[in-house]
């Protein structure tokens, strides 16, 4: 049972960032802008957030309130991601550029920029931070609850709870607010929205900026629970988030379940040695094998679910107000 709790806790470390970033991608694509720069946005967000923590920890600030530091780091990451995503917004919405190319450019740039700055400041590419202070070992009452307490309230991180909150907000915004309705209209039939007075450009900017903010927050929340340093990469998580978004058919609750699913596989890749059955499999270099599993699993599922896949109808098509 211990193993199960451990795996579950690990799974959350992977699922929650996936969830947050996939929701970000969803907002962008629902407004009509394909965003494959999620990987790059995560890198930028993670870098800024972790760098912030690194500096703050060095000067001893927030030593007594590490969770506050965490929150601030998330904000910094989110803001950085948003600023970076504005490059995509500008290119896609105002300049009507090919969104896939623009996104690829941002992915390439992000890693180069981040390593460049890291090495300029620190001489090395890795940025270290003290991870332990952020771990919430236990909650006063909640972790005593049988089963649930072990799963959700031990060895947890603030980002987990934040992720759930973001999910709930996303669900409500899309279903019940003006903004959500108008955003969705822009991705399905922007000319209809325009003829009813919706400013499609502004909505698409909003969608992309939200994906930037969530991508940045996702980047920070990916790094903190899983490692002690940031080395300029998020190992393809931004792309996995895209797959989660597609698998979740651009719907928040489905995205949530997809993220949990993939999180599990990723967790197993890291912790397989704790599961006897997996550990005893006769495969050399199981580590690499299990690292492949989330990707292979994604492919299999996509194969079965993509026949009826229904992306926002107008996504990827630059909005031309003059066309009738």
């Amino acid at each position, binding site marked *: 049972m211990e193993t199960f709790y451990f795996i579950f806790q690990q799974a959350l470390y992977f699922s929650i960032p996936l969830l947050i970033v996939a929701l970000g991608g969803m907002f962008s694509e629902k407004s009509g802008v394909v965003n494959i720069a999620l990987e790059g946005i995560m890198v930028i967000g993670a870098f800024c957030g972790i760098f912030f923590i690194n500096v703050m920890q060095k000067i001893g600030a927030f030593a007594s309130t590490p969770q506050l530091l965490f929150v601030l780091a998330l904000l910094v990451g989110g803001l950085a991601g948003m600023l970076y995503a504005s490059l995509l917004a500008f290119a896609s919405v105002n300049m009507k550029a090919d969104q896939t190319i623009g996104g690829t450019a941002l992915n390439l740039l992000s890693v180069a920029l981040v390593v460049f700055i890291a090495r300029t400041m620190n001489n090395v590419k890795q940025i270290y931070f003290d991870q332990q202070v952020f771990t919430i070992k236990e909650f006063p009452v909640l972790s005593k609850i049988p089963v649930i307490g072990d799963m959700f309230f031990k060895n947890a991180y603030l980002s987990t709870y934040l992720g759930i909150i973001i999910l709930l907000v996303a669900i*409500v915004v899309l279903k*019940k*607010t*003006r903004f959500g*309705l*108008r955003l*969705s*209209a822009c991705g*399905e*039939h922007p*000319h*209809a*929205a*325009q*003829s*009813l*007075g*919706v400013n499609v450009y502004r909505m698409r900017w909003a969608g992309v900026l939200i994906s930037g903010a969530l991508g940045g927050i996702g980047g920070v929340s990916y790094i903190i629970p899983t490692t002690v340093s940031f080395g300029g990469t998020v190992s393809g998580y931004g792309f996995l988030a895209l797959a989660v978004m597609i698998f979740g058919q651009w719907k928040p609750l489905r995205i949530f379940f997809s993220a949990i699913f993939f999180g599990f596989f990723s967790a197993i890749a890291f912790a397989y040695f704790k599961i006897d059955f997996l550990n005893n499999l006769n495969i050399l270099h199981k580590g690499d094998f299990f690292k492949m599993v989330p990707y292979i699993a994604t492919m299999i599922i996509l194969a079965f679910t993509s026949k009826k896949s*229904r992306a926002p*109808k107008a996504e990827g098509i630059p909005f031309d*107000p*003059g066309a*009738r």
Partner: protein
Amino acid sequence: MDYIIEMLHITKEFPGVKANDDVTLQLKKGEIHALLGENGAGKSTLMSILFGLYQPDAGEIRVRGEKVKIKDPNDANDLGIGMVHQHFKLVENFTVLDNILLGHEPIKGLFIDREKAREKILSLSSTYKLHVDPDALIEDISVGMQQRVEILKMLYRDNEILIFDEPTAVLTPQEIDELMEIMKNLVKEGKSIIFISHKLNEIMKVSDRCTVLRRGKLIGTVETAKTSIPELSRMMVGRDIQFKVDKKPAQPGEVVLEVENLTVVSPYSQKNVVNDVSFKVRKGEIVCLAGIEGNGQSEIIYAISGMMKAASGRIVLNGEDITHRNIRYRNDHGISHVPEDRQKYGLILDYNLAYNLALKQYHLPRFQKLGFLKKDAIKAYAEQLIGQYDIRAGQGGATIARSMSGGNQQKAIIAREIDKGSDLLVAVQVTRGLDVGAIEYIHSQIVKERDKGKAVLLVSLEIDEVLSLSDRILVMYEGRIVAELDPEKTDEHELGLYMTGGKEGTNNG
């Protein structure tokens, strides 16, 4: 004279063309005013200016006597102007309710108050007799209901001035009559209406006055009661239009196409869009599948051409069962197909004209050897067709298809399909969006092919075209053939009745 809208001396230029050249249109309060003109005359542009989608280069607009500037649809809306577009602007996977309230959502706190909107919509719906189902998805409802949703959008925003852009293009005769009633009701409640059309009989039926445009210029404004169809058509085109197609009686020969118990299933809804349909087409006759859009005509054509799979049944061409053959086989063995969407299916717009003219034959030994294209042969063939069919293209065969006008693109497709010499010519909505001259030309080409002994299968939504061009009419309703009519012996009302399922006739194609 109390004019509620005045568009005075409007000029609007796009690169290379004057869409509106010093046009003046004045709408009286409470009138139904028709805006008449051919395709490309400038009607849609003028109304788009009124609705705020474009800005005029010169001229002014007055609403209720005051000069205004309409920068975008919001301004138009604030002035009480609303528009139902020719191609509906409805979000397909939203509900009727959400489509109506989009952009104008009532709020309770942070959230949309859908209940309040629902109340208002239901009340408007009953006042104006516009029946809709608020919770249905747009993709699931009929075209007629979709149009009512568009009208409700305007009424929901308390628009006083309602613009209808070619509203009857997608309706049956009965629905057209209903729409005319609806328009008269709206006017009774104090609204003023402009409706754009090129259908002369509708304009005569329902409008008070009519403004005619031709090639961007104002020809005149007349009172409908004091004019006539021939006069309007003369104003619209500059000469008399021939409405009836000149043709000798048909002399049908042997059967070329036989469709037996064809059933086609929709990939989206899993329902039968074509339900056990059987008919024959013979040499030397023109058969037309008539019906409201969406009743299975398109799918029958797709099944015949191979673009959709038949779920059951047989398609036999010249005695050969081609039901399971691929598209290329059918193209090569006697089917020519002029598709319903010329830009989506008929042409590869980014290729030049020559490649497009060779599109169905490039793989034949005539145009390729050992996998390499014979570019000279392709070029020569293009020049031949361009001359024969008078296709206007700036750089001849090297013209990029995208830069050609709609009429010439269609001419190119027709040239390609006719010149193939296939036994069966299938043409879907072949004159959609074309001006009168091109329409007359294409009609004459079709009759010529029929007289040469080809079998012609048409699909048309234009009742006039159906009645004047075909030798036999098969009416489709909900995936079945509900009637076979002789154009000489029927009229548009009987046709309309069958098209809406009002009558069930015999089904023996």
